[in-house]
């Protein structure tokens, strides 16, 4: 009988907190959007599934051994922990958790040994997160794979489109300002590190967003990643109205001259040039842009095709699976069901909007100073969201003029946006760490 009661008290139905139920529904919603609406399924299927797993009550898959010990709410375990921390007065498990989070690294080690002796283990998703994201490796490896899949030909044929990619990054920084503004007004409690991590959503680049969040605001990572990938999937809905509002029908009809052929040598040299400039001017962007350029060099140099192929297939796929599940581990109810998440979702869409607008406006500005006219519709592709944003430019171009194929022209600012976001990420990480944030 005791055993039956034990089984019931171990069951999910008995243990389920309302927040966990909500998060399981959120996970199912993400799966629905990914599978039925084709919302960035490569990431949102693992993220959604991982989010459900992270919220299975009693399974503690997303918790470290210490967190599992604290959440066990076993009075003996709690007193042992409190004693080891030198905590004389405490009431609930929450007090102990709070105290634990303020220990230094050496003390964390002591507690980790203690809970290991008591038989607690890290949860599966916690381990995935530690190895894949906390170490920084998974976003970097994905960025390498993206580099190996990127063709810089259109950008090299028309390097000026880099300015469009630069302008669109204003979405990032405007959002940073929005987030600190919310804190200033007392609406939210974002630190400047949080604000920087939220801003990067506007980069429209998944691995960059995850990399920055993991360094500056790990507890917001789940919401930031979900926002970034969801809005990327929504680019075909978010961008067109803004693009139409800021351009005249005449502008949308501008036909661009065909791109010149780019030689293989130029393509090989480009990632090396970027790398050297990073080394000279922007060391803080070295991990992201370094791996990106490495992937691209492997692709273009033509002598390591087997490595390039693996970077584009087996390696990026394996990493994506674990990255997605790991992000899902940050969808635990206590972290995601927070007013901050609403703030992040609101700021994220504003970031996309501003980035889109600035890209279009920059194209119009450049037309004032140059004879070679740009169709301003390609400016919106500067936000990245490769290749979705370029496709949106192409679609609107065809609507305005059925013979106007903008796809290749828009690929230039599109990949420029990837570089731009990585630069922005490097600057922000460096500055925020300098601010003691």
């Amino acid at each position: 009988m005791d055993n039956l009661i034990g089984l019931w008290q171990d069951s999910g139905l008995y243990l389920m907190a309302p927040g966990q139920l909500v998060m399981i529904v959120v996970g199912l919603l993400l799966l629905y959007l990914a599978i039925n609406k084709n919302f960035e399924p490569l990431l949102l299927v693992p993220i959604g599934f991982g989010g459900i797993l992270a919220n299975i009550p009693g399974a503690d898959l997303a918790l470290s051994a210490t967190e599992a010990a604290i959440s066990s709410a076993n009075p003996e375990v709690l007193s042992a922990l409190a004693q080891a921390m030198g905590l004389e007065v405490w009431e609930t498990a929450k007090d102990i958790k709070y105290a634990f989070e303020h220990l230094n690294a050496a003390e964390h080690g002591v507690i980790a040994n203690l809970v290991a002796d008591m038989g607690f283990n890290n949860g599966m998703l916690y381990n995935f997160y530690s190895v894949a994201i906390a170490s920084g490796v998974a976003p970097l490896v994905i960025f390498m794979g993206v580099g190996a899949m990127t063709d810089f030909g259109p950008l090299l044929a028309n390097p000026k489109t880099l300015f469009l990619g630069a302008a669109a990054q204003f979405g990032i920084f405007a959002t940073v300002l929005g987030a600190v503004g919310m804190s200033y007004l007392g609406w939210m409690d974002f630190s400047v590190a949080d604000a920087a991590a939220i801003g990067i959503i506007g980069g429209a680049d998944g691995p960059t967003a995850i990399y920055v969040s993991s360094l500056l605001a790990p507890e917001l990572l789940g919401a930031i990643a979900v926002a970034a990938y969801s809005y990327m999937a929504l680019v075909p809905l978010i961008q067109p109205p803004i693009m139409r509002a800021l351009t005249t029908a005449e502008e949308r009809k501008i036909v661009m001259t065909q791109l010149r052929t780019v030689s293989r040598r130029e393509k090989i040299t480009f990632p090396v040039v970027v790398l050297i400039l990073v080394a000279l001017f922007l060391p803080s962007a070295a991990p992201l842009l370094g791996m990106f350029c490495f992937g691209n060099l492997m692709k273009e140099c033509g002598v390591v095709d087997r490595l390039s192929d693996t970077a584009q297939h087996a390696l990026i796929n394996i990493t994506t699976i674990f990255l997605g599940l790991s992000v899902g581990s940050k969808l635990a109810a206590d972290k995601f069901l927070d007013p901050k998440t609403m703030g992040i979702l609101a700021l994220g869409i504003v970031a996309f909007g501003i980035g889109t607008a600035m890209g279009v406006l920059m194209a119009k500005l450049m037309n004032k100073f140059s004879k070679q006219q740009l169709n301003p519709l390609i400016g919106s592709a500067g936000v990245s969201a490769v290749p979705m944003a370029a496709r949106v430019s192409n679609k609107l171009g065809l609507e305005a003029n059925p013979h106007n194929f903008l796809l290749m022209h828009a690929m230039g600012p599109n990949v420029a946006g990837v570089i731009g976001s990585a630069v922005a990420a490097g600057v922000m990480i460096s500055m925020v760490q300098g601010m003691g944030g």
Partner: protein
Amino acid sequence: MQEEILQQGVDLMLFGMGTVFVFLTVLVIATTIMSGVVSRLFPDAVKPLPAAAAPPPKAGVDPKLQAIIKAAIEKHRSRHK
């Protein structure tokens, strides 16, 4: 404190956006120079990648045959990658 965070946000924006523009401007210049140097010094020294310049199927091949092979490979590819 409240003031400070606002100040920090403004700083982030100004220096961040500035760095992005400066870096990409330098990159535009460097890329343009690089393309010029490469196309002047090594014109067509290296042929385009074989993959990029896959020879068009020889004329005279039965188009039905081509379609079949293409379908077979498509199917194969969809299963194996």
